[in-house]
């Protein structure tokens, strides 16, 4: 149960100096916004990179300034690699978990800050350094790494002998990821301690908002997964710099150059196991907070309790647990035992069950509701549609026999972008439009917001749906050009269509940037609780003061008490005392 009522006074004094207040701040809210701004910078870079390689795919003869003539294959692969790495780590992990989680987890459980504020600050700064190290890879003499975000050895482990981008660029990639893992471990510890120890009186586990469940389960995943990738990263670094052979076997000859490399005794499969032991939980690290946010928003704007709260909380835990048992489905064609593939296949299909439970309950939440189409609600409903679409293509890839033709084709690109990347981005956008009034005391413009939603939602489907069929026809990912394959070249019109859709959808994000920065200063001012919501973040001023709560909060009921029969308002906040509720009911009758 919840911890002892903790003091809200020891944090009440905000630091005076600008540096301590906004730069090296230990306030979870400032740190949350710092993470969000980092993610915003990262997503901008990641998106521009995708434009560049999409432009190349659509118009191979296009001269893009800065590439020294036509784009070379290694430049294309560097763009793809950096796009994936930046997006997965510095956007999809940073924004929903570290960004929103930092800002809202403490407030939603009634805490004045994270359990370890200084550690929290340290996590952010390490993450920022990790990002800068990664971006620096672009400016190394050999160029940015070209191994994809999965960085499989031996390509990634033997240095420049395996081609361009394998020198300092790849080393910086590994260092960046290792630093990122370290920061994420610290964040995970902090989130877990905070959730367990710092809940306000009355905030039992089963009264936590589903967002908190999302962040909590994600933190547990982070704690168990990032440690493994950190270890793998260090081993890869040793292979590269100290001539160890964790991932490199004997007898390798590159470019017909004798004698064979001096490595002996390692296996690339070891990296694949370690990487995906992290990598599969990672996709849930990206999506679980978005699931929490979607649930939160759907309930709010359906004016209904979330359908099946317990099923929602337990299914998050089930997904979290199962996510550590399915990594082998990334390795059906890797050369690992084909017998273990069957185990991974069934476990992967079974992880579809809690995912389906969530979808059914989201539909159940909408059913009989009073749906208000605010911008965050549009993104939440969009999330459900995308999650269904992307989840279903996962049923193909979960079966090793069907994975044989589809593995490493554009079908996979379509699958994970829709279910994990775009869906998670929709969670982020939903959260931003929803919580913006709380963070800045002003509302974002709804007309711009809705236009942004429609262009993004339709655009995302136009970009990624056609990729399914490209994959079915056999188009492989990480191909800089058809490379003389006629059947791939015949897909050029589809490539052009996708690229145009990507540019339009990308341009639509300008609406968001404008709306975001303009609204910070000029948006319509709002009170504490503009959405008529129930959870604790709406019981404090907008923006919340240092220390969050003016008086120590007390929680009396579950998080989604909307349209409660017999109560005057259609929302019954968690912090209202029974006496206040009784008074209000009397006043209403």
């Amino acid at each position, binding site marked *: 149960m919840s911890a002892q009522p903790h003091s809200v006074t020891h944090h009440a004094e905000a630091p005076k100096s600008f540096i301590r207040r906004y730069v090296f701040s230990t306030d979870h809210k400032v740190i949350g916004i710092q993470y969000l701004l980092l993610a915003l910078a990262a997503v901008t870079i990641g998106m521009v990179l995708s434009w560049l390689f999409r432009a190349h795919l659509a118009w191979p003869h296009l001269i893009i300034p800065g590439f020294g003539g036509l784009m070379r294959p290694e430049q294309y692969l560097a763009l793809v690699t950096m796009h994936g790495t930046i997006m997965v780590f510095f956007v999809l992990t940073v924004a929903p978990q570290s960004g929103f989680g930092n800002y809202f987890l403490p407030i939603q459980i009634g805490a004045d800050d994270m359990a370890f504020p200084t550690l929290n600050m340290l996590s952010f700064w390490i993450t920022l350094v990790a990002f800068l190290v990664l971006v620096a890879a672009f400016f190394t003499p050999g160029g940015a790494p070209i191994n994809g975000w999965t960085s499989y050895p031996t390509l990634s482990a033997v240095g420049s002998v395996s081609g361009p981008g394998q020198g300092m660029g790849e080393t910086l990639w590994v260092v960046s990821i290792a630093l990122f893992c370290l920061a994420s471990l610290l964040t995970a510890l902090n989130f877990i301690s905070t959730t367990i120890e710092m809940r306000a009186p009355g905030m039992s586990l089963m009264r936590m908002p589903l967002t908190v469940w999302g962040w909590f389960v994600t933190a547990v995943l982070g704690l168990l997964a990032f440690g493994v990738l950190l270890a793998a990263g260090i081993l890869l670094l040793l292979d590269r710099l100290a001539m160890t052979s964790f991932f490199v076997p004997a007898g390798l000859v590159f470019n017909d150059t004798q004698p064979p490399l001096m490595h002996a005794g390692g296996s690339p499969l070891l990296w694949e196991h370690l990487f995906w032991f992290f990598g599969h939980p990672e996709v849930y690290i990206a999506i679980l907070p978005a699931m929490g946010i979607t649930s939160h928003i759907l309930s709010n704007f359906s004016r209904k309790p979330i359908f099946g709260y317990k099923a929602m909380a337990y299914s998050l835990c089930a997904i979290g647990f199962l996510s550590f048992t399915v990594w082998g489905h990334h390795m059906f064609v890797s050369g690992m035992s084909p017998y273990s593939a069957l185990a991974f296949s069934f476990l992967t299909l079974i992880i579809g069950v809690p995912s389906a439970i969530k979808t059914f309950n989201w539909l159940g939440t909408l059913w009989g509701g009073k749906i208000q189409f605010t911008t965050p609600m549009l993104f939440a409903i969009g999330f459900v549609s995308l999650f269904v679409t992307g989840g279903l293509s996962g*049923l193909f890839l979960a079966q090793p026999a069907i994975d044989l033709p589809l593995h490493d084709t554009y079908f996979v690109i379509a699958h994970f972008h829709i279910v994990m990347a775009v869906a998670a981005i929709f969670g982020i956008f939903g959260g931003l439009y929803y919580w913006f009034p709380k963070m800045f005391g002003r509302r974002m413009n709804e007309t711009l917001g809705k236009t942004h939603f429609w262009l993004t939602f339709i655009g995302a489907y136009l970009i990624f749906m056609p990729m399914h069929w490209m994959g079915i026809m056999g188009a492989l990912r*990480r191909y800089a050009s058809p490379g003389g394959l006629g059947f791939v070249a015949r897909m050029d019109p589809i490539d052009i269509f996708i690229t145009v859709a990507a540019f339009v959808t990308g341009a639509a994000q300008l609406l968001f940037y404008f709306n975001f920065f303009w609204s910070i200063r000029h948006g319509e001012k709002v009170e504490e609780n503009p959405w008529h919501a129930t959870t604790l973040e709406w019981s404090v001023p907008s923006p919340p003061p240092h220390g969050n709560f003016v008086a120590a909060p007390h929680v009396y009921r579950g998080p989604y008490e909307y349209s409660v029969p017999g109560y005057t308002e259609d929302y019954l906040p968690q912090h209202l005392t029974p006496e206040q509720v009784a008074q209000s009911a009397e006043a209403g009758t």
Partner: protein
Amino acid sequence: MVFREPERGSGLAAAVFSLFLVALVVTTVYIFAAHIWPMPPAITHVGHWIDQQYRLTLWVTGIIFVLAQLTLAWMVFRYRDRGQKARFVRGSHVLEIVWTTATLVLFTTLGAMAVRAWAQVHFISPVPGALQVDVMAEQFTWNFRYPGPDGKFAPTAPIYYSDANGNPFGIDPSSKDTDDIVSPILVVPVGQEVVLHLESKDVIHDFYVRELRIKQDIVPGMNIPIHFTPLKIGEYHIMCAQLCGLGHNRMHSMMRVVSESDFQKWLKQQEAENQQ
């Protein structure tokens, strides 16, 4: 369609949302149903089994896709804010149990049915006497080796790899077995089982032929056998499906499936070239 001008301006959003989801469903179903962008035809029995399982999965996921998206479209339109009061429901144990059980049964059944095709690829040994071919992948070319008239592969070692001297497999120069046939393309007789022994010199590559429905990573330090029986004469692309460096997209070769007599003819021709 007629609907009242609703309160809170939600009618338009609801209608647009629903119509978009309907359009998504119709377009997607049409593209699949009309085979606009299909898989190339399979040329092995195993490939047909894989396709059968693929079609089954397409049906199952297709039905769920249509039902789920249309339900969402209906919910969004039906329950838009028209000033009504939301129903106060916390959930339903019965429904939770029903849909949990239903999806569990459905998904695991699907998985169980997929085992057969996978078993055909990986659990069943090739017939004795199947044609044996060594495959050596390297940045960014394919090499294939046949044992030659003596039916035996010459011994090899990495130290002897030399593309420049026409010895990509590193055949031991001191070996007496000099009749191995080395070719940049894969030629196989129709209707006969072939075993490929996949090896890589440098990085991970992947042997992928669409029409075989086979994709197999080639991992440095490992020798991975795969087997198949092509049933249709023709030429098929061999592609590298695992990122192997800057030339990844140009790393392809050809699998030529020919009649038995054409295959023997080709072997003879290669042997003759060897002796020159």
